[in-house]
């Protein structure tokens, strides 16, 4: 050592919020707290809500949204956004319904694979053409919707024999809907793969600072394409769940899940600017959003007030769950 200088451990406290530890931890659990509060509120409004059957139904309802949100969370973590998930899921329901008679049980993996491929194609377009993901997937959304309309002849495709996807409608141990269990599995799997491989740091680095990640030799382009690919695959799987539930595929079936899915991600506390967040957060967010979507009308909130409440609660939930210290400028 040539220098006797005693450097301060942190010369310039970067955020000056280092004391906010307990508070920060609280924000970390906010999605869970929001969930609990919401369940409590719904129970107060209608005591019947807190029954095993009711919660089972809610978890089954939430399953496709959880899967959609989990996939899209990866894209958001990388700093992008995927607006095509819902349209892709709709298209996938049509494809699945069309292919089930011929391919049987094979249709499910084929559809998921096809959806993953479509996701990857969008990722490639985003990376190679350097178009913002918002635009690529906005365009993708309309293109995929158009394809779904044409392929289905603008009508719903009924699934007469749904045995190959009926397993998703079973219940584990009689209580846990298989679809919810699978959704949980998808979330756990994504979280696990991220955690035990270098992917976690690659994804976060890409999301926090793409240029720094690239200059550190991180395969930024591949990571992004991969994120879109997984997002697509999740959309495909969500479609399988929808088909198993509705016994049909439709060109607009999942379209209305786009904004709830994005809401789930943000309510979970994942920063829409990238880097900060996790799929577990999106799981909690998806449950909150589902309860709002389904719970409010069930406990007897009139439709007009339901929308007002939905809007207000979503905004408040995001305000609570977003860790302001991690994001400097909020656009």
């Amino acid at each position, binding site marked *: 050592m040539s220098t006797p200088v005693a450097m301060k451990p942190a010369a310039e406290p970067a955020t000056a919020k280092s004391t906010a530890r307990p508070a920060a931890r609280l*924000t*970390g*659990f906010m999605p*869970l707290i929001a969930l609990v509060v919401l369940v409590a509120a719904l129970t107060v409004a209608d005591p*019947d*809500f807190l*029954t095993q*059957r*009711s919660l*089972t*139904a*809610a978890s*089954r*309802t939430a399953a*496709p949204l959880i899967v959609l949100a989990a996939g899209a969370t990866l894209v958001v973590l990388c700093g992008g956004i995927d607006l095509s998930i819902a349209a892709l899921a709709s298209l996938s329901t049509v494809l699945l319904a069309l292919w089930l008679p011929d391919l049987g049980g094979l249709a499910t993996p084929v559809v998921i694979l096809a959806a993953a491929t479509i996701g990857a194609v969008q990722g490639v377009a985003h990376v190679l053409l350097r178009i913002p993901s918002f635009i690529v997937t906005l365009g993708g959304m309309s293109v995929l919707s158009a394809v779904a309309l044409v392929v289905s002849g*603008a*009508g*719903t*495709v*009924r699934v007469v024999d749904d045995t190959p996807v009926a*397993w998703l409608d*079973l*219940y*584990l*141990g*009689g209580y846990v*809907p298989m679809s919810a*269990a699978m959704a*949980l*599995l998808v979330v*756990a*799997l994504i*979280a*696990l793969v991220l*955690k035990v491989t270098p992917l976690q740091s690659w994804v976060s680095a890409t999301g926090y600072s793409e240029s720094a990640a690239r200059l550190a030799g991180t395969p930024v382009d591949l990571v992004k394409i991969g994120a879109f690919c997984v997002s697509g695959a999740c959309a495909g799987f969500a479609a399988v769940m*929808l088909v198993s*539930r*509705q*016994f*049909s595929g*439709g060109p*607009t*079936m*999942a379209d*209305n*899940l786009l904004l709830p899915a994005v809401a789930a991600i943000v309510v979970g*506390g994942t920063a829409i600017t990238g880097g900060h967040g*996790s799929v*577990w*957060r999106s*799981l909690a967010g998806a449950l909150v959003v*589902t309860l709002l*979507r*389904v*719970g409010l*009308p*069930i406990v007897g909130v*009139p*439709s*007009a007030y339901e929308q007002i409440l939905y809007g207000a609660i979503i905004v408040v939930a995001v305000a609570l769950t977003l860790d302001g210290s991690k994001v400097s400028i909020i656009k």
Partner: protein
Amino acid sequence: MKFTSRPAAAIMSLSLAAAVLAGCTEQAGGEDTAAGSSSCESKDVRLVGQVRNESNPYEASWLAGGDAFAQSVGLKQERLTYDGDSTKQQEQISQILAGNTKCLVMNVLPNGDADTPPIVKGADQAGAYLVTQWNKPADLKPADHKTWLSHITYNGIESGQQIGDALSEAIGGNGGIIALQGVLDTAAAKDRFAGLEASLKKNTGVKLLDQQTANFSRAEALTVTKTLLTKHGDNVKGIWAANDDMALGALEALQQAGKAGKVAVVGIDAVPDAVSAVQGGTMTATVSSDGTWQGGIGLAIGYCVATGKLKVEDIAADNRAFFAKQFLITKSNAAEFAAPKTNPSDFECANVFNRVAGPLT
């Protein structure tokens, strides 16, 4: 944030996988509340009415009709709306069915044909009384089910044909017309258009210039009509719309194109605005489908069965899926339909099938 540590996540996923492998799966639900076995007290009956939204007049009147009936028997209707979102409809139904289904009566407007089977299946399993309206696949029949009491619809072919005929009469049996279709994936839209085609066969002087879907929406009808008017110009003598909302949108388009009164317009549903338009002469004809009655009757049938005043076995097969009576409304009889009228006696258990026009074909 960490909801789980890595070991916890690993254990969780492992146990999940184990559970799947062990195959401890079974069908859930369906085990309780065998329907019809015991009749319910009137006060225990739970009435649920579900339509797309409260923001269009027809469905608003449906819910109002349901409320009126519920009030007449001292109950309250639970109003559900799903914004025309099939997914949300299923989610709401499955949430409702997860509650107390013992004396549950549902009067449902399925979003599309394909949305009916899962609703029926869910109601079957939960033993809830179900009346569906408008949309169902042809091969699915209430008679094959125990708690799916009835499916009510209007004869779309008939109404489509009736207004088609009225339109050709209005344009003197000669000239071009354009058609505005409804949501393509609905029996209503398909039947009504089939009715128009039948009418066209009969009235050979009338030529269908173009047909586009405007999804039963007034705003979409406005733009579609405008575009079609520029495309076909003065060749357009009449506009056939699969519902009144679209017909009203078409009227606006005509007015903006300076063709108000020069082109005949027909629709179906007899929403108040359309009836007054017919009365005022800007619209040629519409066909009554009585939303208020539909909202009440579905609940009434279910209520009667639930309280044991009506036995499922006693319902005539023809009444398990039927066309309700409808009327062509033209300027001559429009005044009669200007004010919606529900007759409480229509909902008495002995009268619930009074408006049956014929079995579903």
